[in-house]
């Protein structure tokens, strides 16, 4: 009798121990799981490759949104979408779905995926703000251009949507789980071929985890992230624009309630990101606050969720290397009035080249373009000052503590040399090789090149035609408008509509279609002022013929 009992107890004990061991191994496997969806081609990696932002570290859960929640959200709360229409994924935020992708189940350009903690999670990558589209007419073919400002993407609207969704009563397991099942079922019915970026349906354990933990954890994450950014008025951004330097203030614990309101309104256009090799050593960002392409990338990378503890350094430098020599597409030659070009070139050289550099990289050559990549003081350029003011002297200093502790051997000769070299212009292939050798040993490194300036940086004009609207805040729709004095520039126009205007050089920003699909930009709103970059030396006094010729030449950039 006692022997039987003992045998039973031993059996139960053994089973319990085995079970605990199995659960422990499984938990360990899940918690250490970290597999990005990888792309071999550099362009694909730029479009969909992960910067590491999905994953967490210790007490940080990471920014990644579970794929199934991302896919189900527009279907769960369609009334919160800008156009209120389900079944189109995130199209209504101007996110770009490539041909052959199904917006209901696939990711748009600029979203990456990584399996961490056993969950397929998605978050932003660089291309979300740096890939745009244009069409040559309302019925024209949509051309997707990598490295171009994301002219249609409404980042602010997406943030507002996530904010509203995260506090909506439907954002809980009892609503979310049935919706996920429904979406998974329709994906099966759609019969899409397998792809790494289309993860399998949730298993039994995943379903339990989501029901009891995952959904509310995700909600907490969104509420606390967006809560930190509560002081930002996302409705002022519009398509193709972002407030770059206010979010880091939240990250750095700035006392926002004591900040000057004019220092919290830094809405600016997304920049293009081609030709980074030639930009090495120029003053970058609209106000020229940093000369290091690497620091600039890491700083922007925070927006993709990549923190010093979670960044996938190799993946990010792979993106940087893709952009190193990336080129803008040429202006469609059929729309260039060739005979005017040489006259335009002469005008450009007289008026523009000193600040904006030559037509092709490296933009600055001996005797030419001496001021390209340098800062022009605000008193001279006189463009809207809000973006400049939002970047405060205090922020420049506090940013010096970002990426603190990296690289671990910062005092090594190579890493000191890397920090010196990072702002040196590239002169030769040997320079590039030396720089990459240093970078690969010492990247990422603590921010050491941020500074406060008193103006805006003179940028090279590569791909100029795709960088409309113009000025740092996108307040002038076309090049033709930029060659007029402020009173003649459009006061109200519509941005985010991607049909191109090949005559005035810029997007179509007026008319019923633009009004229907675009976002109303009112230049009288603080931050949107369309003055500045005007007067004789800026070409606004040129004769109409000279302006026409200059515009034809500028098409060739």
């Amino acid at each position, binding site marked *: 009798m006692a022997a039987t009992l003992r045998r039973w107890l031993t059996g139960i004990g053994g089973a319990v121990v085995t079970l605990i061991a199995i659960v422990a191994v499984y938990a360990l496997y899940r918690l250490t799981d970290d597999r990005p969806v990888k792309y071999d081609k550099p362009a694909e990696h730029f479009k969909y490759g992960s910067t590491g932002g999905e994953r967490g570290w210790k007490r940080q859960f990471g920014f990644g949104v579970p794929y199934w929640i991302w896919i189900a959200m527009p279907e769960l709360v369609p009334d919160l979408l800008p156009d209120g229409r389900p079944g189109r994924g995130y199209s209504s935020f101007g996110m770009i779905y490539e041909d052959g992708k199904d917006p209901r189940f696939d990711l748009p350009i600029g979203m990456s995926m990584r399996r961490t903690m056993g969950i397929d999670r998605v978050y932003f990558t660089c291309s979300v703000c740096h890939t745009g589209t244009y069409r040559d007419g309302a019925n024209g073919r949509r051309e997707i251009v990598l490295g171009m400002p994301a002219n249609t993407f409404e980042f602010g609207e997406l943030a507002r949507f996530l904010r509203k969704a995260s506090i909506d009563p439907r954002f809980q397991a009892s609503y979310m789980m049935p919706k996920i099942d429904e979406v998974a079922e329709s994906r099966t019915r759609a019969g899409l071929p397998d792809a790494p970026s289309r993860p399998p349906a949730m298993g039994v354990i995943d379903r339990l985890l989501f029901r009891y933990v995952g959904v509310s954890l995700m909600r907490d994450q969104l509420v606390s992230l967006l809560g930190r950014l509560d002081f930002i008025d996302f409705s002022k951004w519009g398509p193709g624009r972002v407030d770059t330097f206010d979010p880091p203030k939240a990250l750095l614990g700035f006392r926002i309630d004591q900040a000057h309101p004019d220092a919290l309104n830094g809405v600016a256009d997304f920049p293009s990101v081609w030709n980074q090799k030639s930009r090495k050593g120029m003053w970058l960002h609209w106000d020229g606050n940093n000369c290091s392409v690497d620091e600039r990338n890491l700083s922007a990378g925070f927006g993709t969720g990549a923190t*010093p503890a979670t960044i996938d350094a190799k993946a990010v430098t792979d993106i940087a290397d893709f952009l190193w020599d990336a080129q803008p597409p040429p202006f469609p030659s059929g729309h260039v009035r060739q005979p005017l070009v040489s006259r335009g070139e002469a005008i450009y050289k007289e008026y523009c080249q000193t600040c904006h550099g030559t037509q092709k990289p490296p933009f600055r050559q001996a005797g030419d373009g001496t001021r390209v990549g340098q800062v022009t003081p605000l008193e001279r350029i006189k463009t809207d000052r809000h973006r400049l003011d939002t970047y405060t002297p205090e922020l420049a200093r506090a940013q*010096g503590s970002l990426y603190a502790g990296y690289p671990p051997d910062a005092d090594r000769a190579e890493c000191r040399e890397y920090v010196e070299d990072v702002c040196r212009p590239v002169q030769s292939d040997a320079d590039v090789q030396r720089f990459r050798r240093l970078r690969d040993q010492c990247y990422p490194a603590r921010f050491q090149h941020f500074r406060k300036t008193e103006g805006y940086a003179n940028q090279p004009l590569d791909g100029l035609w795709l960088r409309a609207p113009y000025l740092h805040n996108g307040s002038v729709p076309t090049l033709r408008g930029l060659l007029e004095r402020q009173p003649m520039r459009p006061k109200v126009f519509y941005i985010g509509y991607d049909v191109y205007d090949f005559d005035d050089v810029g997007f179509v920003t007026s008319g019923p279609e633009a009004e229907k699909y675009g976002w109303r930009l009112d230049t009288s709103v603080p931050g949107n002022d369309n003055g500045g970059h005007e007067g004789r030396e800026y070409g606004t006094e040129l004769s109409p013929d000279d302006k026409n010729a200059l515009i034809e030449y500028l098409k060739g950039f």
Partner: protein
Amino acid sequence: MRRRPALIAVAAFVVVGLVLVTWTMLYREAPQPASITSDADSNFLYGSIGNESNSGLPYWVAVVLPRVFGAQYLPGPGGYAALLPWEEGQELPVGFAKRTVGVERVGFTCALCHTSERRLSGHVTPRIDAAGALRAADINGLADFFTQSASDARFSADTILQEIDLAYRLGVLERALYRFVLIPASRERLLDLGSRLRSPHAATVSSSGSTRPALFPKTPAH
């Protein structure tokens, strides 16, 4: 009986190991880099005066404190830059010396009080004058910030580590040291600093009646 020598060897090994780890993590000193010590100005601004261990803070507590409590207890936006002179490109404000004593620590130096930040006409970027006459640093503000942060209910190993985890990957041992030793001790240290920064050259008498050393030793007038 035959096992005893083996046992002794194992025990000795463990003891020696523990002593070594403890020494490495708490007491091992490393010099500051030559980039700080070889230049008179940087040495004044960031050079250690050897007080990291007995009146400084663990490096990561010093770094993340404004990120956790700055929005509540600093007088304005800017982290430490809201209070103290800070050179662009530097990881810490003027008067913060970073040095390894076991772990990396931050000590406070003469330059914390004796440096001014001037705005010269035409420069928005403040210039740092070592040993300047103008008193630009808001030391009372810093004292308040330390006191209020340490007194806040959110001051805990969990909160501080959560912020550190956003900024750095601490190793397993160092993280444990932060959780169980350094962060709890920092609370006391911050309260202590809060009172001592108000009269940095005077020996202070604590509530228990014992005399504590001054934050900075008194120097003869010259």
